[in-house]
């Protein structure tokens, strides 16, 4: 399934299964416990990722497409180590950085202080963050808003700040989950450059998105996920065409 792209493997996913529990109702209340003898929380097991195998190579940008609920975010979270696997394995050269839907880390604090907090959580030292803070601010294009509380930011501004923090120290493996669709044209151009920097330094990027032109422009290969399994993996234009044809077909029926 994997045609070798030349570079050696940076992340190897083998038959990965990720299940998680969705609780039907939060916690059984006293009424359930006493009236119905319901002690445990009722839950359903969602099999979000069911047997995915793929390799990520050096200098490669892999697109990850699929409908909402196909398991893209779950797969990316598992690759970062945020979700435990039910079975299978995910091996990697280093721990990937995940860039997901952005929430404000500390809404009451300024963007500048959030850079410090985000950077520390990513494992940067205070000195490293301080030496890069100007570069991070410039990259985010938020110089004027940086000392305002983060809760006053628009979602696009939050996403820009997150991207800038997450790539402050160029990661070897970057997983991007729907984060690039936001932001204006200029920021998208800058982030595309940063992605190119990663791949030119023999790193790998996974781009999970719905925005097909982005995928076709940036990606060397595209993986199409459907209902937790890999439907196709390969040449971007072919996979995207196949994906779009099912979308329009179900849309028509």
């Amino acid at each position, binding site marked *: 399934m994997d045609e070798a792209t030349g570079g*050696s493997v940076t992340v190897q996913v083998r038959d990965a299964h990720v299940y998680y529990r969705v609780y039907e109702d939060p916690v059984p209340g006293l009424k359930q416990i006493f009236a119905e003898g319901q002690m445990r929380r009722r839950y359903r097991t969602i099999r979000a990722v069911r047997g995915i195998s793929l390799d990520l190579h050096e200098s490669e940008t892999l697109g990850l497409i699929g409908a909402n609920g196909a398991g893209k975010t779950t797969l990316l979270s598992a690759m970062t180590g*945020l979700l435990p696997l039910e079975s299978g394995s995910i*091996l990697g050269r280093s721990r990937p950085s*995940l*860039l*997901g839907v952005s929430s404000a880390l500390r809404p009451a*604090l300024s963007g500048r202080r959030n850079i410090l907090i985000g950077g*520390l*959580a990513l*494992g940067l030292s205070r000195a490293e963050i301080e030496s890069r803070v100007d570069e991070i601010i410039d990259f985010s294009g938020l110089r004027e808003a940086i000392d305002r509380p983060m809760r006053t930011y628009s979602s696009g501004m939050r996403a820009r700040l997150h991207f800038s923090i997450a790539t402050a120290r160029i990661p070897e493996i970057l997983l991007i989950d729907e984060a690039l669709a936001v932001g204006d044209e200029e920021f998208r151009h800058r982030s595309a450059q940063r992605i190119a920097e990663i791949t030119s330094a023999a790193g790998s990027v996974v781009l999970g998105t719905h925005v097909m032109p982005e995928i076709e422009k940036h990606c060397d290969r595209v993986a199409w996920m459907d209902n937790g399994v890999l439907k196709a993996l390969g040449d971007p234009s072919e996979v995207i065409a196949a994906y779009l044809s099912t979308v329009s077909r179900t849309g028509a029926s």
Partner: protein
Amino acid sequence: MKGSDQYLHDLTRPPSATKYLAEAWRRREFAVLVPAQDLRAQNMGTVLGQLWHLVNPILLVGVYFLIFGVVLDTSRGVENFLGFLIIGVVLFHLTQRAVQDAAVCISRNLGLIRSVQFPRILLPVAAVNGQTAAFMPALLLALISVLVTGERPTLRWLALPAVLVAQFVFNLGAALIVARIGALIADLQQLLPHFFRLVFYASGVIFSVEAFISSPGWRRAFAVNPIYDILSCARWCLLGEPVDVWAVVGLMVWAIVLPVVGFWFFLRSEQRLGA
């Protein structure tokens, strides 16, 4: 294909306890700087600002002194009741706030947990660090009041840092346990204030246990209460109040056992917290 898979490592398996601790230690700056940011944010937009960290303990002790020193007069058997009360109230509140903060540290940081892979033990540790930092003005206040009320520094004062270190590691252990339970059962947050009110009266914060309980057997039983141990030892250091040897032993046992138990307990469900 050049390069083999030999330098690929498992990204999903939890690391060993020693590796985990090493990683947490490497990122220790997080547990110091993040709570510092949060403390600063706490009083933003107030007139007194950061002064609240000093005004708060003054008001706290003032209220207790008014009720228990003046109105109810529980000062029986205590020479320097104001000093006695301040040490009790300030140290008690340090543990209470550290533990209560740890109970919500996971749920309050879900955004961070879901976007960055980092040792989650840093969150309860940060909670304890933050409360310990916030406690420093109160400690200063306690030392000043003890001096003002006529105590003179003696060699016993040199033992105080050891008592405070023991309290700190005890708080860490308690925070780790409470962080895990609080992440899974949100009701804990509601229960803790009541639990601490009970402990408050069972620890001799506002009265001398020695003066109110005459049976030596019962008095000895208080040594299982870690807060009582902390207060007794600290009051011995600063005021020369008598301390039971069992309280000293009790504090030492708590300070050694609880962090170990807490770390083990926290690590067992680390991956599930906040997921």
